């Protein structure tokens, strides 16, 4: 498999020999391990270790017959897990993350050895492919991929679905309590205009690309801007709003929103729809100046244990009946034609779940920004640290 090798080892030779000898000597004297070797391992990343690459092994002591799934906080429930167990006899253990970036950090830190299935979003799939973290999907073991809408048969983030299988899609927008918010908000702009009234009663996603993207979008720039001046302008605008922001959180705002502690939150459609259906005071919209439309996928990481079960899980989720069930229970829009056709009229006509084309036309998919990633991270660190 082609993999970007670390440059670290060549870099290291450029250092002065004295320092190198000192470090190597002192470390070797302590435990016979040279620090240089240690650091080289980090630069290469534990997840891409040769040994785990060659043979899918029992990663870090995960039990056989158990499938560890690493997914978004709102993407499975006990009913789905039970149904899978009934069908295959495999126990599923679900761990959750709250952003693509924290998932990547966990994988790169070596804490994700047990997971056989992960649910990165589109741009993260691309990034993980570049980092060599994904195994290519054996299409012979996949059933029902042709049920997916044409739109996702050859997506830009992963041409030909070589490494990932589309699982669900949705939008990002604002969710608010009609009773306490004045007027009818239609755009991101509302946050800045009503900053005073909303003070400490709004939350934004704890997600660098989504939140920075939303602000870029409100300024008329692209969600995927790589122009440092535009990113900086977005940063300044976000800092302006900062005093009104109670917290950055991606999940778990429901209690506070229903209880009246929050008035407006930035949310993924999945959670927003659940909220609007649970409490009729809640309203969700995709801002006019544009927002993100995302696709979350299922992937098998390099070195995953229990690959057979992983394929079974993917096929289980590609089953139109199951895909329909998860849309009905969890409100993630299905990319599955057959499942979509079987949905109730009520759900199909729910414009939060399946927005009309003109809304989608305003939205953008988040794409990797290459070199600018560091810039986004830096500004995000400043926003959250200021």
């Amino acid at each position, binding site marked *: 498999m082609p993999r970007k090798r670390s440059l670290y080892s060549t870099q290291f030779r450029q250092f002065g020999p004295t320092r190198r000898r000192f470090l190597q000597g002192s470390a070797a004297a302590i435990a016979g*391990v040279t620090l240089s*070797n*240690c*650091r080289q*391992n*980090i630069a290469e990343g*534990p997840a891409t*270790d040769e040994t*785990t690459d060659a043979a899918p092994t029992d*990663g*870090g*002591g*995960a*039990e056989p017959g*158990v499938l*560890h799934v690493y997914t978004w*906080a709102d993407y499975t429930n006990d009913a789905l897990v039970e149904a899978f167990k009934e069908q295959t006899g495999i126990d599923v*253990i679900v*761990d*959750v993350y*709250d952003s693509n970036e924290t998932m990547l950090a966990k994988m790169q*830190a*070596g*804490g*994700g*050895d*047990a997971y056989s299935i992960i649910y990165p979003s589109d741009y993260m799939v691309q990034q993980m492919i570049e980092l060599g973290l994904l195994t290519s999907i054996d299409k012979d073991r996949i059933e029902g991929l042709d049920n997916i809408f044409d739109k996702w048969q050859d997506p830009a983030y992963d041409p030909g679905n070589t490494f990932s299988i589309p699982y669900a899609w949705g939008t990002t927008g604002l969710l608010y309590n009609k009773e306490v918010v004045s007027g009818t908000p239609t755009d991101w702009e509302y946050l800045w205009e009503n900053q005073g009234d909303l003070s400490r009663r709004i939350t934004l996603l704890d997600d660098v690309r989504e939140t920075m993207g939303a602000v870029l979008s409100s300024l008329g720039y692209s969600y995927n801007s790589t122009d440092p001046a535009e990113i900086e302008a977005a940063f300044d605008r976000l800092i302006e709003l900062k005093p009104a922001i109670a917290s950055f*959180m991606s*999940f*778990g*705002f*429901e*209690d506070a929103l*229903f*209880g009246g502690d929050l008035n407006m939150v930035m949310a993924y459609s999945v959670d927003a729809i659940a909220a609007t259906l649970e409490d009729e005071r809640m309203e969700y919209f995709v801002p006019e100046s544009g927002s993100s439309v995302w696709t979350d996928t299922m992937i098998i990481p390099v070195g995953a244990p229990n690959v057979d079960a992983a394929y079974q899980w993917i096929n289980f989720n590609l089953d139109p009946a199951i895909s329909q069930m998860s849309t009905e229970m969890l409100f993630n829009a299905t990319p599955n034609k057959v499942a979509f056709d079987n949905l109730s009229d009520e759900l199909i006509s729910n414009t939060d779940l399946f927005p009309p084309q003109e809304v989608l036309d305003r939205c953008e998919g988040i794409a990797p920004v290459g070199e600018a990633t560091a810039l986004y991270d830096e500004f995000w660190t400043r926003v959250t640290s200021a």
Partner: protein
Amino acid sequence: MRLPAFWPLPRTWQGWLTTALFAFMYGPILVLTVYSFNDSIRYTSVWQGFSLKWYESLFQDTRIFRALQDTLFVAIVAVAISSVLGTLMAIGLAKYYFPGKGVYRGVSYLPLIIPDISIAVATLVFLASLAIPLSIWTIIAAHMVFCLAYIAVVVSSRLGSLDPNLEEAALDLGATPAQALIQVLLPQLMPAIVAGCLLAFVLSVDDLLISSFTAGGGANPLPLEIFSRIRNGVKPDMNALSVLLILASGMIAALGEYLRYKGSMTDG
């Protein structure tokens, strides 16, 4: 002004402040307890009637019990090994004089001084650099560091107040050093060892940071699960869980404090 002899309330402002701060310390725990019986759909601060439903939902929550199992496994194994190592270290430090002892003692205090986050980061980097896959065993290895340090400190302070003549007498009477250690020294140290183990146990069970950085292979100790639930939305059964955990740790605490009390009594 003289207050009547049976006056049940504090007589001074310090007494009143203490009473207020007792309320401060126990208030949040009381709040959790009350809400754990609240018959609400979501977690609200409005009382909606008495119900045991959150306890029922808690007992059906297999994730919590898996997490609890992981936590107890980590704590018991880490504390069991550390109790031996920590006691050995305390005795060794008390008995022997050797060059570099100051450094050794200093290192043994480090886990008590260095912030958790730094220990956690260092351990992660170390494990990553050796490409050791993270698992429940790496959590145990990392927990042993602070467990053995705390046990050693508690045992050390007890050793300082022991009569060294007893062990010497045993040696003079023909006991081997090992016999003297096991039959004379250990029984005297036992209360301190148990107290140290309880302290280490509680710290291990409560640890979030070090576990976060060293957990892998599907191991998911309870603090990680609780943290993830608080961040990602909680059902009120967390209240029920808190109440049960507080009851359990209260009992451990009572035992621990009793042992400490007993230990301090025998010191004279």
